[in-house]
Every structure is written in C-alpha cells, then in structure tokens.
C-alpha cells in the first residue's frame, strides 16, 4: 500500500473531473449561445461579438489607418455594415447577416465579417455558397 501515491492519483483524477465538468459547462453554454461574429481586418481577427448575447443594437467604426471607414451595426442575432466610404459599397449592400454561410466583405478596406458556423441545421448542412 502506498497511500501518498493513491492520494495524488485521486487528486489528479478529481482535478481532471473538475476540468471536464467546467469544460462541458463552458461548451454547452458556448453552443447554447453559439452565434459568434468575428470581424477581420486583412484576415486578422480584431473583434469577436456574441450576437446572441446582444440585447440592444449598437454600432462601432472600424478604420484601417489608410482612410477607409466602416460603420458596423450590431443587433440581436445579426450584424451588418451600415455605412462605409468605399467606392463600391458592396459591404453595405450585403445587408444583415445572421448565418455562417456568407461573409460581409469590403475589399477596399480589406475588412470581412463572418459568423462561426455553429448550428449546421440552420444552414442545411451546406459547406459554402457560390455566387
């Protein structure tokens, strides 16, 4: 009998179990909310927003230091570029997005907004949209 080792083993097991429980709780809550919008500048994420936690609409401006400005509006469950000073306004015309299939892209500002594909059923198990 080696009680010390046994205690240590139990402690590790307990810690692992605790970690698993925390992990499970976090993952469940993460999946439950599950609508994360990521804002990328030149492919690099600059902001993550949990759209399902948004209760009141708000907006913020993203600038790139080269004169491009995009006013991003966040509302419960959805996100859009409300105003931009790019010449083509493709980002504004895309309108609100609420699923992970189609990103909002502003080519001149090298800005993209994309929802993490969480609930596959929402988008009928699609891998991409072409158009």
């Amino acid at each position, binding site marked *: 009998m080696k009680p010390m080792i046994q205690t240590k083993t139990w402690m590790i097991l307990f810690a692992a179990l605790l970690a698993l429980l925390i992990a499970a709780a976090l993952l469940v809550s993460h999946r439950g909310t599950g609508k994360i919008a990521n804002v990328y500048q030149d492919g690099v994420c600059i902001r993550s927003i949990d759209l399902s936690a948004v209760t009141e609409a708000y907006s913020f401006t993203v600038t790139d230091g080269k004169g491009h400005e995009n006013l991003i509006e966040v509302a419960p469950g959805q996100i859009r570029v409300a105003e931009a000073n790019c010449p083509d306004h493709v980002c504004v015309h895309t309108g609100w997005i609420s699923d992970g299939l189609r990103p909002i892209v502003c080519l001149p500002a090298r800005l*993209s907004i994309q929802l993490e594909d969480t609930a596959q059923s929402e988008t009928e198990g699609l891998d991409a949209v072409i158009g």
Partner: protein
Amino acid sequence: MKRFFLLVTVLCFLLAGCGFDAPSTVSGTSTEIVEEPSDTASVPESAQHQGELPASQPFDVRLFAMDTYMELRAYGDGAEDALQAVSSMLTELDQLLSVTDEGSEIYALNHGEGQPAAVSEQTYELIEDALALSRNLADALDMTIYPVSRAWGFTTGSYQIPSDSQLQALLPFVDDTQVVLNERDGTVRIPPSAELDLAAVAKGYAGDRAAEMMKQAGVRSALLNLGSSTIRTVGVKPDGSQWRIAIQDPQDSSGLAGVVTMGEGAMDTSGGYERFFTGADGETYWHILDPKTGYPAKHGLISVTVLSETSFLGDGLSTALFVMGLEEAVRYWRANGGFEFILIADDGSLYLSEGAAERFSPIGNYENAKMTVIKP
C-alpha cells in the same frame, strides 16, 4: 496536473473563436490560422487527453488576394502548414499577375510599348493556356478586355457609363489573338494600347495550384473558396460525404437557388449580380462585358455555374457561357463537353446538363422553377 493543463489548453483553443483578446498574426503574411471551435461530440476524449486536436479539426485561412476575399479550409495532418504555404503562393501569384501593381510581370508586359518581354516560365505557361482557352471560346472570352472594363469603372468601383465613341475607340485593341508568344526565348508581346488581364482565369488557375499543393502535402480534404465565385475542393469531407455547395439566388442576395453535391473538383459561377450598378437612365449595368460590343453581356442568362475537373477551365467557361447566352452555351457544350453546367435564365427558369442535373436540387425560390435537362 499536466493533463489538466493540456486539457485547459485544448479548451482555450476550442473556445477562443478568433479571440476576444489581441489578434495573433502569422509572421510574414497577412493571414491568421484559427482552430475552429467544434462540438464536444466531434472531439474524441483521447485526443483531448493527449493535448492534440483530432484529425477532423478544420484549419482556416482568410486572405485578400487577386482583388477578392478568399477563405481556405483544410482538414487533418499537415493542413495547417499546407494552408500557410498556399497563402504565400497566392500572395506571390497576385504580385506576378496583378494588372495594377507596377512590380508585376503583367504590368511590365502591358507597359512594354509593344516590345517583347521575357516572363517567368510559370506566367508564360499561364498566358499560353489562357490564350488557348480564349481562342477555343472565340468571341465569348478575351484576355484583353481590361481597358473597356476600366472605362466602365469595374476595375475601381467608381462606376460610370462610358460614351459610345469612347468604347468604339477602345474595341479595336480588344483582341487577344494579337498577343504574340515566342517559345524560343520565352517572351510575350502585347500590342501597344492593348492590355492583358488574366483575371478571367487567374483565380481558377490559383485554385488548381492550391489543390495540387494541398495534395502533395498529404491533405486529403480541403475546401478552397477563392473569392465566392470559384470553389476548388480536395477530396471529400473528412466524414467521407460529398461537399454541399449552394448557388446564390441571382435575384435575391440573401436567398439560394439550389444545392450541388460534389467530390473533388471545381465549381465556378458567373452572374451579373456579382458586380453591377444602376445608371442614371435606370438601367442595370454589370461587370461581365461582351468583348464584341464592349457593353455588359445581356443574352438572357443571369447566372452560370460550371462544374469541371479544374477551376482554370471552370473559371473561364462560366464567364464565357454567360456571354454566349443559352443557345450558344448549349451548342458549345455539345461540341466540346468536358464539363457540366447549371444556367439560370432571366425568366427564372433553369437549364442543366444531364450530369449536373444528377447532382443538383433546387431550393428556396427555385423549388418550383421550370427545369430543363439538356442531353449531350
């Protein structure tokens, strides 16, 4: 406790999304590789305990290149490194082929005042292939349409309707049969006032090269979205099922027209709705120009999707079939084959080649659309 930390580390990766904290950049490129968050069910416990991500874990790269936004996703061993290599390749290719970048090979050719200039072997071969395809497609595709496109503002986004005399003055230089390739010294000659632009096939070519690199790196499953109208796949999905790609509803930017299932290959779409403007006259003017007239190609089609083995072919063909219109497109397909198509006409009806019909199911507004299957 080691296990505990490993587990926490794995969970941090899974939960981070792309991070509420400071962004991390991959040195040397403007891309970021992000471990996608995943359902608990798809993460085997053993993998968690080893502190490793399971083989089906996707890796994503997003980048701006070739005047478009690309999203590359790959699965399994070697995926992360392969994506890194591919994004470097795409950035380099962009620098070689850009029409506007003063350091590009194409820029040098276009500003060579009619003198032959040497280009890299890779660019030479691409020009050769592009011109061969263009020749095969006769008047429906021309690699020297760029000055006309610029007159409309489609190259900058500052749209305008050029005068008819302006277009008539540019049209004589839209003729890629005048580009001279010299195999002996590897030079290319662009006539003065003409400008070569490989945009019609560049993304497709990039897709094929990316797919090749992925396969050489041992990646067996990847979905390469080279700017929303060119998709190139490697293998099938990690679970062995086919990819499911939806075609956008050309009349409703938030809607879908149908779903195509595919294994390894290419899918390319061209539509007037991708880039257009409404003129002061109330008319819609889109970016797909008819090389014969210099005006937007309006020949009854609003969306053309091509399924083919290579995205080089699909990229060029989707534009060309759009310019041709229904009857000529079908005639071309019957004479040449080698691809499948899904055409949406401006009255909302669908025309599919037999092979495409087997893989297509209409959805949304197109669920009850008139569908005509065309036999070879």
